[in-house]
C-alpha cells in the first residue's frame, strides 16, 4: 500500500503497539489515546501485555482501531512506539515494511521506518519527564491526521488540576513535533462505549441485580473487586474483601440465602479453594454467580497472562452430582449480556452459574454499542408462578420442575432452611434412602427446564462449510475474523462459537458436524478441553485441534496460519 493510498483513501484499520518498562505510564497513555479514538468515532480494540511486577521489565499495550468493527488483535503492526530498546528488539519484526517506528532519537536506532521525535526532551520542556506518554499521544494524533480536542477532553477528565497544564502542554508539543502521515476514513462508530471485559462483566452484574460481591484479590479478577468497591456507596452494594476465597464463596452463599443476589470473582487458584462452596450451592440450591477469570495454571502459573484451561474444571469441580451452568463469555458486549443473564438463570433455577472469562478479555478494552439494560435485565423468562404447596413452607418441596419455592428469611411467614446435608422437603437432615433419591432427581430435573433455554453456539462463515471450527469464550472474535479471511482465500470455512458451554447445547453442533469434512477445535489450552467435552457429550471427535498455551492469546494471524498448517486448503479443495 503506497503512501498516497494511506493518505487519500485512508486505511480502514491501524494496529499500534506502545511498549516500555513497567511504571513508565504505558497504561495512562494507552487510556488517553483509546479515549480520543473512541470519541473521534472509531472502533477500538485495545489489549495489554503486562508483567507481574510494578517497575521495570517490559510491558506493552496494543491498540487496533479504525472505521471497521474490531474485537481481536492481529500481529502485524502499522505503528510501533518504543520507549526503550527492548521494545524495539521485541516488536520490530512485527512492524510492517511500510510501518512507522516512533521513538526518541536518543535511543540511537537505525531503521528505515524510523520517525524520530524527541519525546524525552519535549516532556522535560513541558514541565515533567513523566509526560512522555502524553507527548506520544500528541505526536500520534497528528501522525494520523486526527484533531487534538478529544485527547484534551480526556486529559481534563482524568488528571488532577495540579498536573493538567503540563500535560496539555506536552500534548501540544507532541502534536507540533509530528506530521500527518496516515489518514483514517471518516468515523463510523459514533456513540459507542469503551469498556474492558471486566467492566462489561461488572456492569452486566449490576443489570442482573447484583447486591453482594465478595472476593480475595487475585489477578486477573481483581479489577472486578476494584470496580464494585468504587460503586459500593453510590449503588448501595455490599462488597467484602474476604480473608480467603473459601470465606468469599461462603459469604456470598450466606448473602444469597438472606435474599441478596450474590457473586464471587476469582481466578483458577481461588476457584480451587471455592469448590466445596460450589457443591454447597448445588445441594442447598443457593443461587450464586461465580466468575472465573482464567489465567494459566496450575497453582500460581502465569499470574498476568491468559488461558482457557479451566473449562473442564469448571464443568466438573466438586464431589457429588448436581446441576450447574457454565457460560464462557465471548467478547465485551457478550460479557455484559451473559453476566446479567447468569443472575437470572441462577435465581430462576436456584443453582450455581459459572462464568468463564480470562485475562485477555477482562483486561482488553473495546468499543461496544451501548447495551440495552432493560433487555439484559429480562433476558430470561420468569418462572411460571406455581401455587405454593399447601401447609407449612417447605424450602425443598418436590415439584415437577424441580424448582422449589424460594423465600427469604425474615421476609416470610415460614421459616427458611438451607442445608448442606441431604435433606427432606422441610430442609432438615435425612438419611432416608427414598428421600435421597427423590432429592437427587428433583435437583437434576431443573436441568430439563434449563436445557430448553440454553443458547446454541453462534455460527459464523459460509452456509455449508466443508471445514468446521469450534471454539468458546474469548477466542471467538479472532476466530470470526480468521474465518472471514480464510473464506476470502477461497476456502469453505465456518465456526461455531460456544457461549453456553455446559450443559453443552448440541442441536446446531450436530447439524453442522454432519455437513463438514473436517472439524477443528481452536482453544487456548494444551489438552483440547472443548474437543474433549464435545466428544464426551456427543461422541463426536474433532479431526485436530489448534492449541496455544504460552499464556498469550491467539491472534487472528496465528489462527489463519495455524489452520493453513493443518493443510485445510489442500485437504478440502473448494
Amino acid at each position, binding site marked *: 500500500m503506497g503512501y498516497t493510498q494511506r493518505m487519500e483513501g485512508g486505511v480502514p484499520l491501524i494496529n499500534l503497539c506502545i511498549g516500555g518498562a513497567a511504571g513508565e505510564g504505558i497504561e495512562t497513555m494507552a487510556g488517553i489515546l483509546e479515549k480520543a479514538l473512541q470519541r473521534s468515532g472509531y472502533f477500538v480494540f485495545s489489549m495489554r501485555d503486562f508483567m507481574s511486577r510494578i517497575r521495570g521489565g517490559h510491558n506493552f499495550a496494543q491498540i487496533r482501531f479504525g472505521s471497521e468493527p474490531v474485537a481481536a488483535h492481529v500481529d502485524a503492526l502499522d505503528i510501533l512506539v518504543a520507549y526503550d530498546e527492548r521494545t524495539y528488539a521485541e516488536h520490530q519484526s512485527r512492524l510492517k515494511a511500510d510501518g512507522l517506528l516512533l521513538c526518541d532519537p536518543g535511543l540511537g536506532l537505525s531503521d528505515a521506518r524510523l520517525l524520530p521525535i524527541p519525546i524525552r526532551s519535549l516532556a522535560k520542556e513541558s514541565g515533567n519527564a513523566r509526560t512522555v506518554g502524553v507527548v506520544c499521544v500528541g505526536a500520534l494524533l497528528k501522525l494520523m491526521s486526527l484533531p487534538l480536542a478529544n485527547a484534551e477532553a480526556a486529559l481534563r477528565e482524568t488528571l488532577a488540576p495540579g498536573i493538567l497544564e503540563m500535560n496539555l502542554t506536552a500534548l501540544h508539543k507532541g502534536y507540533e513535533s509530528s506530521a500527518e502521515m496516515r489518514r483514517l476514513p471518516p468515523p463510523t462508530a459514533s456513540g459507542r462505549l469503551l*469498556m474492558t471485559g471486566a467492566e462489561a462483566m461488572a*456492569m452486566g452484574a449490576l443489570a442482573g441485580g447484583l447486591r453482594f460481591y465478595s472476593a480475595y484479590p487475585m489477578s486477573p479478577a481483581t479489577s472486578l473487586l476494584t470496580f464494585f468497591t468504587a460503586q459500593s456507596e453510590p*449503588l448501595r452494594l455490599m462488597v467484602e474483601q474476604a480473608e480467603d476465597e473459601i470465606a468469599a464463596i*461462603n459469604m456470598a452463599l450466606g448473602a444469597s440465602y438472606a435474599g441478596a443476589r450474590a457473586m464471587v470473582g476469582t481466578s483458577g487458584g481461588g476457584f480451587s479453594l471455592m469448590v466445596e462452596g460450589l457443591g454447597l450451592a448445588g445441594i442447598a440450591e443457593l443461587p450464586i454467580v461465580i466468575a472465573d477469570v482464567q489465567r494459566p495454571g496450575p497453582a500460581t502459573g502465569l499470574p498476568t497472562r491468559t488461558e482457557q484451561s479451566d473449562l473442564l474444571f469448571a464443568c466438573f469441580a466438586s464431589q457429588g452430582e448436581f446441576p450447574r451452568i457454565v457460560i464462557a463469555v465471548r467478547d465485551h458486549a457478550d460479557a455484559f449480556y451473559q453476566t446479567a443473564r447468569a443472575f437470572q438463570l441462577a435465581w430462576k433455577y436456584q443453582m450455581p452459574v459459572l462464568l468463564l472469562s480470562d485475562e485477555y478479555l477482562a483486561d482488553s478494552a473495546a468499543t461496544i454499542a451501548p447495551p440495552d*439494560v432493560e433487555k439484559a*435485565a429480562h433476558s430470561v423468562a420468569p418462572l411460571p408462578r406455581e401455587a405454593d404447596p399447601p401447609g407449612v413452607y417447605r424450602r425443598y418441596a418436590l415439584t415437577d420442575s424441580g424448582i422449589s419455592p424460594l423465600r427469604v428469611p425474615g421476609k416470610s411467614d415460614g*421459616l427458611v432452611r438451607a*442445608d*448442606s446435608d441431604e435433606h427432606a422437603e422441610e430442609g432438615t*437432615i435425612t438419611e432416608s434412602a427414598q428421600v435421597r433419591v427423590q432429592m437427587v432427581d428433583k435437583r437434576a430435573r431443573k436441568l430439563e427446564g434449563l436445557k430448553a433455554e440454553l443458547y446454541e453456539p453462534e455460527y459464523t462463515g459460509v452456509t455449508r462449510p466443508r471445514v468446521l471450527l469450534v471454539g468458546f469464550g474469548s477466542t471467538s472474535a479472532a476466530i470470526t475474523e480468521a474465518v472471514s479471511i480464510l473464506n476470502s482465500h477461497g476456502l469453505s470455512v465456518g465456526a461455531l462459537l460456544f457461549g453456553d458451554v455446559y450443559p453443552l447445547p448440541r442441536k446446531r453442533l450436530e447439524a453442522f458436524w454432519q455437513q463438514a469434512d473436517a472439524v477443528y477445535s481452536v482453544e487456548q489450552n494444551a489438552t483440547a478441553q472443548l474437543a474433549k467435552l464435545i466428544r464426551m457429550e456427543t461422541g463426536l471427535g474433532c479431526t485436530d485441534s489448534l492449541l496455544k498455551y504460552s499464556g498469550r492469546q491467539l491472534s487472528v494471524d496465528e489462527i489463519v496460519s495455524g489452520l493453513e498448517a493443518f493443510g485445510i486448503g489442500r485437504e478440502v479443495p473448494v
Partner: protein
Amino acid sequence: MTDFAFHSDQSAWCPGCGNFDIAVTLAAVLGELRLTPERVLLVGGIGQAAKLNQYIDANGYSGLHGRALPAAVAAKMANEALTVIVDTGDGDSYGEGGNHFLHNIRRNVDITHFAHDNQIYGLTKGQTSPTSDPCGQGRGGACNLGKPFNPLLVALAAGATFVARTISGNREHMAGVMKAAILHNGYALVDILQPCVSFNKVNTFAYYKEHTYALEADYDAAHLETALLRSLEYGPKIPIGIFYQVERPTYHQQRPGLYDGTPMIDKPVSLPEVEALLARFA
C-alpha cells in the same frame, strides 16, 4: 409464631449430651428476649453441635464445616433486621474455621457465636480437638501434644469486643451469658464448655462442676489486661463468666452510608442507575 420450640425428639445427639442443655437454654433465652423465630437466623457448620439449628424453630442455615461464620456475617450484612446466631463446635470454630474466627473478630459484625466446646471431635468418634487438654497425667487418646488452643486468649488478642465462657450443665449461668452476648452490639464469642458423654471421659459434667468457678461479682469486664490474664487461667481452676465486654463501632456502624436501618435487600439498584453508570464509558 412466637415459640422457639426445641424438638429434642428429632435430635441425633447421644443421650445425656451437653448439647441438649445448650439448646434448651438458648430456646428459652430467645423467647425471654421477645424475639420472633422468623427474625432469628441460627447458623451452623458441620458436626453434632452444628445441628442445633435443625432442632429449634427458627430460620436455619447448615453450611460447610468450618464455614459458619462467613455465611452468618454475610446474612447479617444482607438483612440487618435478622438476629444472627452461630451455634457450632470447637473443631468447626477453631480448627477448620480458624481463619474465619480471626478475621470476623476484626470485622466485628453484630452476630453471636456460641462455640460448643467439648474438647473432642465427637461425630468422628474421638479425635483430638484444638482445645483438647494437654497429654500426660494418664491422658491417652484425644489430647494435645502441644499447647491447646485458648479461644478466649486469642479472641481477646485479636480485638473481640465480647468474650465469655460458660458451661453446659449450669443453665442459669449459661442463660445470663447468652442473653448478654445476644444483646451485645458487635461480634460476641461465648465458649461453652460441654461434656461429650461418649468420647470424652475426663471433661465430664462433674469435672466442669468441680473445676469451674464464676468470675467475682466485682470483676470489671472493661479491662483488656485483666481479661487477658484471667483467660490464661485454665487448669485446676477455670473461670466462667463475661471476661471482656466493650463497645467498638460494628461493621455496620462503620458504614453508615450503607447500613442505615433499612435492610440492604430492600434497597436494590435501579436500572436507571445502571444506565447512568454506563454513560460514563461514553
